[in-house]
């Protein structure tokens, strides 16, 4: 399987982390998104939205959206419950991640680390409020159970961990949320954990504007 990857993207990090747990070898294809490589005709043929991560199976099927890729790769493994309420609870937290973390912590961190914060006005306050609410929800939930969807470590933990554990990059306060930081450590202790965060500074183009497909 080919994995179209951009190092500093924590959405790509999610997939790399799951692959490490599963011992699945992905053929990594680096995509320099700020050089416009995700907006090339070849890439858009694979993903009309022009985004990474993108997974291409051996039969040439393409799948986008980090959390959809996680569920696909985790199917039939302990990281994704097979059915019923346990599975629905994992999906529930994957949806929460999209609605409440992607729209807040992810965006603020990206703007902060690539020098783009100044381009945004009103969106900064909205994202900060939403991000703080999301972190409070997580901290409260993780006071009741060891992992976000219940007793076992799943793709819901992997997904939410990706951006929440680096939220300090966007000046969110993590140490005051003890349940959350203890959960970070619990995740780091999982067999096969591999959590290298690639800094944006490794990409000299990351201060450029993203080229959108639209």
């Amino acid at each position, binding site marked *: 399987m080919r994995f179209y990857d951009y190092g500093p993207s924590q959405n790509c990090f999610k997939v790399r982390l799951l692959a490490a747990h599963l011992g699945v070898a992905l053929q990594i294809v680096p995509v320099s998104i700020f050089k416009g490589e995700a907006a090339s005709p070849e890439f858009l043929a694979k993903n009309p939205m022009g985004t990474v991560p993108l997974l291409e199976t051996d039969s040439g099927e393409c799948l986008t959206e980090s959390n959809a890729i996680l569920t696909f790769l985790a199917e039939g493994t302990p990281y994704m419950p097979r059915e019923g309420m346990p599975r629905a609870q994992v999906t529930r937290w994957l*949806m929460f991640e999209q609605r409440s973390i992607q729209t807040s912590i992810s965006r603020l961190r990206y703007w902060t680390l690539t020098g783009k914060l100044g381009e945004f006005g*009103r969106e900064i306050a909205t994202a900060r409020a939403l991000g703080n609410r999301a972190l409070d929800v997580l901290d409260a939930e993780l006071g009741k159970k060891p992992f976000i969807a219940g007793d076992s470590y799943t793709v819901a933990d992997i997904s939410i961990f990706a951006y929440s554990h680096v939220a300090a990059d966007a000046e969110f306060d993590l140490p005051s949320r003890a349940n959350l930081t203890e959960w970070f450590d619990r995740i780091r202790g999982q067999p096969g954990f591999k959590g290298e965060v690639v800094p944006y500074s490794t990409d000299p183009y990351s201060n450029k504007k993203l080229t959108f497909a639209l």
Partner: protein
Amino acid sequence: MLTLYHSQPTGNSYKVRLLLSILQIPYTAVEIDIFNGENKNAAYQRINPLGKAPALRLEDESILTESNAILSYLASGTEYFPSDALLRARVLQWMFFEQRSHVPYIGVARFQMHLLKKTPRDDDLAIWNLHGNIALEIMNRHLAKAWWLAADAFTIADIALYAYTHVAPEGGFDLSKYRGVQQWLERIESRPGYVPLMQTPPVTSRFLE
């Protein structure tokens, strides 16, 4: 019997009612008046600590929240949520897109303008317009070539995205630019079991503390 805690006019609650109707699953609908803070009271906080609707209560009293997770739970084992791993992931792909790129702009614009009757700030309006139209354009491009979003057949991805798309004009969006989207809306509206957003469920009660 299932109990659905819902808010009649919101798209997220509507999605679940639409699927329940299509699947012909009986349920008791309990209206939560989010416009008068009923979702914030202690009794509802015990059902959903996040104070959001919808929430689904199963017969064993367990609770499931997040509209799209409820859809995936109810549709499991039916034709509306394929069991093939790749197809299933494609359905979820569109549902994740809905939560991150569609609801925060199209859903929020409609909530503020139509349900709360607020006059939006210019800067909010500009953000909703920009990103909401990108989401509609992505859907439109796909629907120019396909009848349904995630598969060759109607799935819960179509239900999830239908909910806020069909009322996007209430958030100030002009759908006449998106012919593929408009035709897709009509296809959904002609399906057996379709119910409109404001149609009250058959068995219904008000939430009482």
